[in-house]
């Protein structure tokens, strides 16, 4: 592994930027976030299995490029299958379907599926990363939809109608909700770290 790819994989700012863009797009509605999360999970699982099968060869110089091709290829296959057999779901995702590969790549390089020692571990890691992403996206989307649109999964919440904050439905709202989620995760991590010490 080169020094450059190592920096790319470990730089949280770069990872956050890569993850923030799709989050802005896909987390204004719980249904879109859920659909996106499931699709990302499937892509991570499929690419994780393929990457593990090729683990010996991926350790060579062009491993990173190969991983990108595998993830992008899996995302394209998923898109085609959705477009053919679940068109309503595919249409609901709209342009978000095209950014699945970006989220999956972010998740993959953050989790390091490539280094798995067995197929079981590769699947477990892919599932863990995918579910983590799914849960975070759904929570962020729920916060944004309730506060920004006074609804949840498209169902109106009359109580929140008078307290709507329209900015939460827009790009600034996504950053605020992401920051809230990041703060909760950081707080939990810090607590566990202290307990460990």
């Amino acid at each position, binding site marked *: 592994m080169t020094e450059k790819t190592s920096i790319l994989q470990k730089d949280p700012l770069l990872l956050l930027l890569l993850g923030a863009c799709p989050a802005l797009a896909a987390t204004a509605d719980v249904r879109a976030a859920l659909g996106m999360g499931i699709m990302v999970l499937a892509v991570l699982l499929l690419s994780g299995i393929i990457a593990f099968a090729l683990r010996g*060869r*991926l350790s*060579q*110089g*062009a491993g990173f490029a190969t991983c990108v091709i595998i993830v992008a*290829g899996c995302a394209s296959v998923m898109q*085609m299958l959705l477009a*053919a057999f679940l068109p309503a779901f595919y249409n609901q995702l709209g342009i978000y379907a095209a950014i699945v590969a970006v989220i999956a790549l972010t998740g993959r390089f953050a989790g390091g599926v490539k280094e798995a020692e067995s197929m079981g571990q590769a699947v477990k890691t892919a599932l863990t990363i995918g579910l983590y992403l799914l849960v975070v996206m759904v929570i962020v989307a729920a916060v944004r939809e309730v506060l920004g649109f006074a609804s949840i999964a498209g169902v109106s919440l009359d109580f929140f109608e008078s307290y709507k904050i329209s900015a939460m439905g827009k790009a600034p709202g996504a950053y605020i909700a992401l920051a809230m989620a990041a703060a909760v995760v950081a707080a939990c991590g810090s607590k566990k770290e202290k307990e460990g010490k």
Partner: protein
Amino acid sequence: MAKQNSSVKSLAMPVVAALVFAVLLAGLNVGLGPIIEENQSSQAFGPLMEVMPEATGFELVEVELPETVVGVYKEVSGQGYAVRCAATSQYSEQPMEMTIGIDAEGKICGIKLDVYTESKDFGLEYPQTYVGQDSTLADVGVVSGVTYSSVAFKGAVEDAFAVLIENGLIAEGVKGEDQLLMELLPQLHSGLFLGTVGQYEEMEVSGSMVSAMKAANGSGFAYIMKEGDGSYLAVCNNFGVCKIYDIEGAEVTAEHSALADEAKAHAQSNATSYFDAAKSRFEAMLPGISGVTEVETVGVCNSIVEAVTFQYNGAVHYGFYSRSYGYANEPMDIFIAMDSNGAIAAQTAKELILHGEYFNAYTLDEPSYKAGFKGLTAETWSPDVAAISGATMTSDAMATATEDAFAAFQSIQNGGN
């Protein structure tokens, strides 16, 4: 050499991966391509299918479109056309989107209001009154209470038909005589219309009458009548003057006097008298008037429901009572007094701002507004005098009433012609 081999091996893996995925995606595309295309087609043409359920597919027709028509689509098996339209009602500016299915014979086979938030009930029943209609739209009207919405809707449907007809895609419907006569009516009796929207109630017919209409403001009547093989339009004002017109719009009262007499008798038996209301209002407007009598020699058909003459300051004056349509299409009660030269001596309205309880923050200097009319004649008058900022419909009603009063005055001067 070993380093070179290592580089080749490094490059081989991503190249092989790319090739494998390229082949996989190509294979999927061959297998799933038609399914995906069908899905996309049904999504794009979904609204079109709703108005033409038997359609097998659509293709876009490249023609020049008016502002209200979004797209024209031809049904591929020759069943007809689907037209997507977008309009706005003048009243609210809310977007109104609709899809119209027109069969090969040029009749509406399906119609759907896709988007319109202004009036939820509007889209349920009204669009269905268009089904079966050809380009003449002979049996559809506008809906009272949602006048602006229905006018916008009808206008868009007319535009959809116009595009198909102008491009030779369907044949134009042939208007019946009754419809042609009804199209003449706004010019022949403006009291039954606000713009091109009818303001009348249908009445029970008798004798030669096919249809009978009474103006909502009481300014007169209109009748579609049959004599021999011909259809005629009779228009009557509230003074008992009736005229007969043929489908060309030519006056043929002398040739069809029996129809005129029949219409006149019906109009007089159903007319509303406004004399007492006019007399008391002019007495209040111009204290000291005397000898108020009704004038019957008014030959024009407009918003004037009563005309009187009286003595004021030792000179003959005329008073005209107009009920032109104002806010919410409701008739306003407007009184205009003129001297014997046709110059306005005084002008007032029973309620200048209708529904004043809702517009209680409205500020209008009524005395100076009314004074602005004083001394004006038909030659010096301008509609700008009637303008009230922020009250377009009231301004229009005041202008109409004033112009109608000048026309009635001129008619009296001409002996009722």
